[in-house]
């Protein structure tokens, strides 16, 4: 679309139209503006929204088919992430462990200013807002370590406010969990 537009513009600048009557100009005006100014953008927008809105819905923390999603609480602070597994006695700093192929809801809060929780390869980002709890859905399909970081500027330590999310296959995750509980 972009290249076509530039080419058209270039051609328009170079060409010599010769004599053109008022009537021809008016017809050209109506045709171009209706086609290029209205139909083109409206059509593209409809297409994008038709694809985009369902895609956005799929990313929402809706209740999964089989029961509730697993919950991890993350409290951001200047400058780090306090991670709590509710009812499991696990507290971590700057690292999360999740099982693969399991929907996980991250409950995001903040101890001070606004931060933003972002693991680029797993999900979009969501801000932590004072006085509120925001919920972000994560689901890793492959085991591995994923890097995450704060995406909302939050002061001097912002650049170094990173964390890791480690996804384990479910059995290994259970082992990790038992070990972590024992360590506490």
């Amino acid at each position, binding site marked *: *679309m*972009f290249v076509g*537009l*530039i080419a*058209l*513009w270039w051609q*328009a*600048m*170079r*060409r010599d*139209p010769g004599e*053109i009557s008022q009537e021809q*100009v008016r017809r*050209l*005006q109506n045709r*171009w*503006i209706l*086609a*290029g*100014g*209205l139909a083109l*953008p409206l059509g*593209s*927008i409809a297409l*994008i*929204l038709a694809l*985009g*809105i369902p*895609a*956005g*819905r799929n990313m*929402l923390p809706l209740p999964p088919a089989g029961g509730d999603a697993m919950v991890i609480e993350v409290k951001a602070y*200047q400058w780090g992430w306090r991670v709590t597994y509710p009812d499991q006695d696990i507290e971590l700093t700057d690292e999360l462990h999740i099982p693969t192929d399991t929907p996980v809801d991250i409950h995001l809060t903040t101890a*001070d*200013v*606004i931060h*933003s929780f*972002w693991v*680029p390869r797993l*999900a*979009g*980002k*969501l*801000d932590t*807002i*004072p*006085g*509120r709890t*925001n919920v972000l859905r994560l689901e890793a399909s492959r085991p591995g370590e994923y*890097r995450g970081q*704060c*995406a*909302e*500027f*939050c*002061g*001097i*330590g*912002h*650049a170094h406010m990173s964390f890791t999310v480690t996804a384990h296959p479910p059995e290994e995750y259970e082992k990790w969990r038992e070990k972590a509980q024992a360590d506490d």
Partner: protein
Amino acid sequence: MTEPDPNQHRAFERVWGNRPGWGALAAVNHTSIGLRFMGTGIFFFLVGGLLAMLIRTQIALPEQEIIGPETYNQLFTMHGTVMMFLFAIPVLEGLAIYMIPKMIGTRDLVFPRISSLGYYCYLFGGLIILSSLFLGIAPNSGWFMYTPLSSAEYAPGPGSDFWLLGITFVEISAMAAGIELTVSILRSRAPGMTLSKMPIFCWYILAMALMIVFGFPPLILGSILLELERAAGLPFFQVAGGGDPLLWQHLFWLFGHPEVYIIFLPAAGIVSTLIPVFAQRPLVGYRWIVLAIMITGFISFGLWVHHMFTVGIPQLAQAFFSAASMLVAVPTAIQVFAWLATLWVGKVIFSLPMLWVFGFLVVFVCGGLTGVMLALVPFNWQVHDTHFVVAHLHYVLVGGMFFPLMAGLYYWLPHLSGRMPSRNLGNWGFWLTFIGFNVTFLLMHLTGLLGMPRRVYTYESGMGWDGLNLLSSVGGFIMSAGIALIILDVVLHFRFGKPAPRNPWNADTLEWATRTPPSSYNFLSQPRIETRHPLWDRPDLPDTIAAGAHGLRDIGHGRREIYGTDAVHARLKEVIHLPTNSWWPLLSALALAVVCISLLIRTYPLALVALAVATGLLLRWSWENGAHPKAAPLGLQEPTDPPLHSRTCDGPGLWGMAVTLLADATLYLSLLFSWFYLWTVSPEWRLPEETPLALAPLVLCGLLLAAAVALYSRMTQRLRLGQDRNLLANTALVALLGVLHTAALIGVFAGADLRPTELAHDAVLMVMLFYLLFHSGLATVATGLQAWRVKLGYLSARLPYEPMVLKPFWMYTLGIFWLSVAVFLLLPMAWGSA
């Protein structure tokens, strides 16, 4: 080419010219003020550019520590602030101030002293903000100052105060320009120039001016609230007191998104002006473009939430704002295709300004496409606050504003210097800038997609960002070299440029009918304009204007006179007499600067004194008006057909008042928005058990106000009919009622049991009360002064103008009083009992 008669020219220069030497600081002429705005704006552009270079140096390589995080945070905050508030908007305002009167065939803007005040507020405010950088205490919370990072707790230094107070001070200039340009375009076009014959640039500027009027008040309110929170502890944005940090984001982006279009529209106006001239054909689709401008203006106020997709907003709202954001592509596409069609039917003369227009198209269309991508919510969740967004916003702003501005600069250079720019150096400047820009920012899209967040002062090596960042920095320096060449080119052209012939590009608009460089009075006689393309249809206009063949050629009376015409059909209505050179604007701005600085250093007694001085100066300034001996005293030598505007009931002052009240009402609506927002959304909002204000005295207070307004409006009705019996007694009585009402309001305020530092509810009430008090007090003082003017004979049945101007202000004061009682008192009471 006819030159005007030298004697005539000298006589006009004596009336319209600036004073020599230091007296030039008292200048109010729009050409001088416009040039000062643009010159100062370019200075700030260079400062902002320098900051950008420092930023790019720091992140050129991973894990560098050339600039520490603290300084880096100040640098990017100031880069954004300087470029947005001290360069982009003021330069475009300056261009409009310089250009508009010439394009609509008149001699000056309708409120010349306001132009001067605006300029000084901009200059002083800008210098105050800049000084913080040299003191090492610049704001460091990012240019949109999100709370609570910018609040007293997390930003204890004075940096945020510099931003809030300095920007608010600078905004005075934007508001002044917005109001003045609106009224000038509507009320002082050349006779015969109906709205549909207006040059397209004026439509763009009209839209920009109105958007300033409606767009800036939310930010001004937000800044006042945040400064009150920081200085006095009122918890508007603190959850614990019942406030909400997200309120700041709403207020900021309610301003911030229209602001993008406030910058883009005038720049698009330059493109729409240049393309027909270089195609030598009238613009195709003039009406379509006017429609597109209006749609852009409206839609832009409904998009602000798209800056906040990641804060956790309900899904339905996200879908709505996402669709609305994409819709703004429609009016833009209409304009692009209208430009294309114009080029298509014309035989294009390829010159340096057109090269910049071409660069604009490439860069801006790219920025527009990434904009549509960003409006898609799921994509936004991914790239929001990454370098992808940084790249997008630079494509839109540099492409949409800087490139057209450069096109305009080269196009109008001959107008302001009388010389033609060179071709070679200019071409080099363009290509270096264009290539440098794309190297920097095209690659930055990738850096962002690879996950690099914005505003990090450094990053680890091996994330795949290293090479891209280095190239971006190299591109940045290429672009700087290009800009240096452009500056060199412009400077050299003043010395070595070939003298420009009159109307060198064979343009169609009236600014090319003035001398180049222009004289202080623009047009020796003011022509009737009956066509959209005056210089194409009547090529002899410059000569007949200079020869004095048209209206208002008499200057013996020594007044600065222009035609006042009606808003739609441009029928001749009155002769507007304008004020001349004056020190009052400079002195008032200086006093306001002292207010600003004393608030910064938290010396409140000094602030109060300076505020009193500023008020005194402003009132003293307003005194020299109408029939005052220094303005236009009643006399024999005055025109009657049409009459002087101060002898009528409907002049530019009334329109200025109306537009000012629109801005004022927007400020009030922003306060109402904050009130309802906190009430419904804030997590810990609390209503006190009992309303802290006493209802009965408040009602009495409102009845006094109603009596004053009723009396005042009866008085103006009778003046309109030419009756001025008991005018003095009536005016004095209104002033007295005003005093009683204001005193009662102070009594209610003093007796109120407010705990503004504990409850956001009480804090909002307090701001509301101050707002009412300000209006009641001002209306009362102004009416008192009017009573005095009646006594001196400046106000009478022959001079009914000033009460007509003040009347809407009284009505507004009455309106907000009762609305406030209903919304801030009765509604919570009804809620509480239910």
